[in-house]
């Protein structure tokens, strides 16, 4: 029987993979994909808690929020990446160190 724990483990794995992707990818697009994984891990968590813990539809509502937020974030992030690319012809994350102290 599949319970809350399974979902949480899956979600944790998903988060870990996303985090690892964020930390390890050099391509900015890849980093954005990692961010999507982390967001979806969070959304999965909300849905799972919404299903297994008393609370009505609030879990599902949060997931939808996250999905919308992710879409908006992806759009803005992609725009930034494109703008960077047009400016310096490069989207390698480790080269983008203009915020260096």
């Amino acid at each position, binding site marked *: 029987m599949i319970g809350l724990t399974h979902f949480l483990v899956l979600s944790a794995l998903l988060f870990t993979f996303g985090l690892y992707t964020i930390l390890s990818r050099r391509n900015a697009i890849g980093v954005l994909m990692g961010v999507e994984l982390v967001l979806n891990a969070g959304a999965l968590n909300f849905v799972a808690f919404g299903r297994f813990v008393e609370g009505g539809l609030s879990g599902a509502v949060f997931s939808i929020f996250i999905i919308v937020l992710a879409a908006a974030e992806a759009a803005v992030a992609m725009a930034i990446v494109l703008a960077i690319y047009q400016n310096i012809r490069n989207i390698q994350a480790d080269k983008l160190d203009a915020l*260096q102290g």
Partner: protein
Amino acid sequence: MEHSWIGWIVFLPLLGFVFNIFAGKRVGVRVAHTVGVGTVLGSFLLAANGFRMLTAEGAPLAFTSRMWTWIHVGGGTLPELDLSAALTFDHLSAVMALVVSGVGLLIHIYSIGYMKGDEGYARFFSYMNLFSFAMLLLVLGDNVLLMFVGWEGVGLCSYLLIGFWFKHLPNTTAGNKAFIVNRIGDFGFLIGLSLLFWGLIQAGHGTLRFSEINALTPLLADMRFMGLPLLDAIGIFLFVGATGKSAQIPLYVWLPDAMAGPTPVSALIHAATMVTAGVYMIARFNGLYILAPTALAVVATVGAITAIFSATIGLAQNDIKKVLAYSTVSQLGYMMLGVGVAAFSAGIFHLMTHAFFKACLFLGSGSVILSMHHEQDIRKMGGLARKMPWTFGTFLVSTLAIAGLPPFAGFFSKDEILWKVWESGHKGLWLLGFLGALLTSFYMFRLVAVTFFGENRADEHTKSHLKEQPWVVVGPLVGLAFLATVGGFAGVPHALGGANRIHQWLEPAMFHHENGAHARWQAPALVPPAFAAEDGHAADDPGEATRGGDGHRLPAEESPGEVHEEAYAHGEEHAEHPAVDPAEYWLMIISVLGAALSGLLALFIYTRRPDIPARLAERFKGLYRLIYNKYYVDELYQATVISGVLKSMVALARFDLKVIDGIVNGVATLTRWTAVVSGWIDNGFVDGLVNGLADAAKVAGDRLRRLQTGRIQNYAYAVATGTLVLVIIGLLIGFPR
């Protein structure tokens, strides 16, 4: 009542000085000497008019002119000192002002002839006027400070005029000597003044006016200063000032040297007026001195010793002016002797007659010097009587006066002093004075004999030019000789049927305290108290007396006539028929005979037997040399005081170089070393600390900057790691609740 004319007496000569010092050279000699003589003439006329006003019926005892407030301090809990620059014309200062301006006037006139053709003609008259100003200020000053201003002023003028021919080194040296010796005396004078003021403040009276001081001195009678009664200490210190100004032992040494100045200066300053300032000062402080018997004894003793000491020196001098100078010192000694036995009026009387005959003698010697082409050695003179009859005549009259032969002025005044000394019981001092009088007669007739009699010993050129001087020179001589003849009649003693008018005249200026302690000293001064009855100008109107400016004058019921009724049981009787002690006649006869014999002896020896002095000098070689060299006093001072001062100066210079400079240099070196150390600490330590902190911050910043890589992933990595660490810690020790 305002008496601004007193101010004009004093300030007219000052105007003359200002004019001549600035414009004198440009306006020519006629204007210069007209201004110089005219201002003094003005002073004399004003003083004479003041004298007339004092003698008038119902006149006050003194006229006071208050010019401006000078010093006003204190008040509240402190005694108040409200001091005005004020002048007082009372009986004593009237006599002094008349003598100063009168004799001064004649000497100014004489100077027209004497200084003729001198390149410093206007300067001479300006200095003489300045002197007249200072001297008149001295005698007319209402308070001690004003007197002191005049006192210093005459000292300055004395210095200026002794060194008048300043291109000749000995003259300037003599001027310096006079000034420095006087400074020593003035130092004592200042101490005396300070003590006096201190005593008065102790007694609760802040005042420096003579009239008040004299009246208040009984309050100081019980005070003591360093074991001495305060009044005696004050009297002695003031007298130290007088020994300087009036050339008494031990400070007389400047006066003979002061003869380096022009002869009118010697006559005016160093014979007639300035040198008598000390006598005047003591007479002015009579209310103080009468309560200071020890100080009076010192004054009398010093005076008597000075009188005979300098008379012996006068025996062996060959410079005509030096003889007169030592004679002046000797006569000043007589005045001091007089005031020292509290016979203040006798001292002032002798001051006056001495001013007449000694001025005449000096001017006569000046006339001789002019004729002799500035030769002053009497051994090169002789036989001048025929060539210069007027000079000789006046010189002879004055010599008779100074020798104390009747009826000339010196007889009355000197005899008065000697009699007062005898009467006060100081027989030893009388003997000194008497011997001094014999010597005076002897050296003066020696001077006359060698200068005017016998054969002329000058060279042919001088001999052919010998002639009498013009009237500007002879006129003043005649005037002074006249005064020297009649001046004595101002004080004919009761013993000779006179009224001793000068004594009565000065009586209102004398203070008598109702204190029996000084009876012995007081007695001589108090003879006949009858001036009220005779002259009619006395203090019988108390309102008038106080209005005259002297609030502290004796109240009416204490007018001298009554005060001394106790001291003199038959005071009134005295006034009518003065009882004369037969001793007075005897003393008079002895001194006249002595003086006459000694004078005749001198005339005989130096005209008929000039070999006698030479043989005596040969016989008593040591003694002669001692006297001839003025007892080696100058050499003694040179060896002790002066070389002592010089040596201490060298020692002080060495001390200065070694110790003071050493200290200063040591401090500087120490400072430098401290600065080096401090700089080292500053550079190494403080700066090191500051720089170290800055460096540390910089290094830290440099290192920490590396963390801020600007790479998003590094930040994310840090966040993840941090979170992980926190979670692990949470798991290990439990999450906070």
